[in-house]
């Protein structure tokens, strides 16, 4: 392994192609941490945005007009404003309004760090799209199925949880995957509030080593590979979850 890394040092000396995140152990750790942060941020946002989507879709079918209006307002507001401005709004505007807490060293620190705000903001952003996606799936479940469940004595929540959602989930999977892929690409925005994800770490490395070209190309390829793996995995999952004879 060490030989492999050293080869890139030789490559640099011979050709000038500078890839310090391979031969330099400090930069390697930074890049790897950035990679892990990107994946972790994506997973957290994925999880919470799906939760927001499921709950939002349920609320949207509520019989109270105002609940539906509020959910609609949330969707329209988050769909039609730039995610970066949302991120700034959450991090700077709301972040400064929240109380500060005492940290381990006795100093004052904000309640949520930049990572937490990025997770919150991006989850809400992707969640707004997920609500719509889940609702389209719920509408595809035939009324007779729901009526049959009602006849069997299921409660409203049980019908949603055990009947509607599992069926809807399968048909919305393509749209959902599309949104989740978009979410992974949107995590780069966290760079703007100094979350140490892949783009941020790459920026640090190219600032130290003045090798913008190599880092940019590596970054493009890295995201291309990351999204490619995700799309591939999701497509396999879609195929295995497909309802036979439908669509």
């Amino acid at each position, binding site marked *: 392994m060490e030989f492999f890394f050293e080869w890139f040092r030789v490559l640099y000396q011979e050709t000038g192609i500078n890839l310090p995140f391979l031969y330099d152990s400090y930069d390697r750790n930074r890049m790897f941490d950035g990679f892990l942060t990107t994946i972790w941020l994506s997973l957290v946002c994925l999880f919470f945005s799906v939760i927001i989507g499921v709950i939002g879709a349920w609320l949207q079918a509520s019989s109270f007009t105002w609940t539906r209006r509020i959910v609609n307002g949330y969707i329209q507001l988050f769909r039609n*404003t730039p995610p970066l401005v949302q991120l700034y709004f959450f991090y700077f505007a709301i972040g400064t*309004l929240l109380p500060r807490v005492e940290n381990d060293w006795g100093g004052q620190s904000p309640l949520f760090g930049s990572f937490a705000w990025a997770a919150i903001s991006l989850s809400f952003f992707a969640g707004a799209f997920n609500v719509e*996606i889940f609702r389209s799936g719920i509408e595809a479940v035939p009324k007779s199925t729901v009526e049959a469940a009602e006849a069997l004595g299921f409660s409203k929540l049980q019908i949603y949880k055990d009947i509607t959602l599992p069926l809807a989930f399968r048909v919305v999977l393509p749209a959902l995957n599309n949104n989740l892929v978009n979410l992974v690409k949107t995590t780069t925005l966290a*760079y703007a509030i100094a979350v140490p994800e892949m783009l941020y770490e790459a920026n640090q490395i190219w600032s130290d080593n003045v090798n913008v070209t190599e880092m940019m190309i590596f970054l493009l390829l890295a995201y291309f590979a990351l999204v490619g793996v995700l799309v591939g995995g999701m497509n396999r999952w879609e195929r295995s979850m497909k309802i036979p004879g439908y669509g």
Partner: protein
Amino acid sequence: MTYKTDLPVMMPVTQRKAEPFLRLKLWHGVPIALLFIIATSLAFAAEGDEKQSPLAVLMNWAPLLLQGFIFNLVISVSAMSLGTAVGALLGLGQISPNRAMSGSSWIITQFFRNAPWLVLLFFAMFLLPFEVSIFGLAIPFPDWFKAILGLSLPVMANVSEIVRGAVKSLPSGQWEAAESLAYTRRQTLWLIILPQCVKRMLPPWMNLYSILTMATVLASIVGVSEVMTLTGRALSAEGGRPELLAPFYGFVLLLFFAYCYPIARFTVRLEKKFAVIN
């Protein structure tokens, strides 16, 4: 294969857009914006007598911020036209019968579609020269121009997919009928297929434009003086008062909402109008 039955397992999925929020019309934006700004500034009006109220400060800066926003719109329109022109060619390349042509177009499209917008913007920002000289004539590449190029890359890839999808969505009978009437491939494409595709392409294309408009703020990260950069500068010029943050960022949010929401509503209406009933 589809079955006709009285008790289907699932109904067909229709991706519906959200119903209009409180049936808002475009002009409703003005009172809502005013209400929002007044409310946020009233919340902070109690403190700081000698300082200007947040609303007054925002009013001072609003013309400048609006100018910045117009710059955003200029970037979005230019990037959209550039991306659409190149993307349409790329999309036609994808459906070309030539394997090498369609393969390479497909790879380019996938590559730029899968890369994050911000990374592509960085790519264009740092790797393009600040000027090019043609025949001894130096043509400068200012920041905003590089931002337009950087933003048009993902637009190009998405337009390419929209074109391919629209052409693929047409029934193959159209191609076969044209062939039986002795149209050449080029004639079929230009006279029969593409005119029918325009209708199908328009809604996703407008959706993409709305996404692009929202992506123009990314240019602030790479230092173009658009609305987000100007907001940051205005805030620091006011001495970084924390109570100003919410009204200022809220104002920028509202600007984009006021611009993108009508586009979204119009897109939904077009989709309904062009919907094929089968």
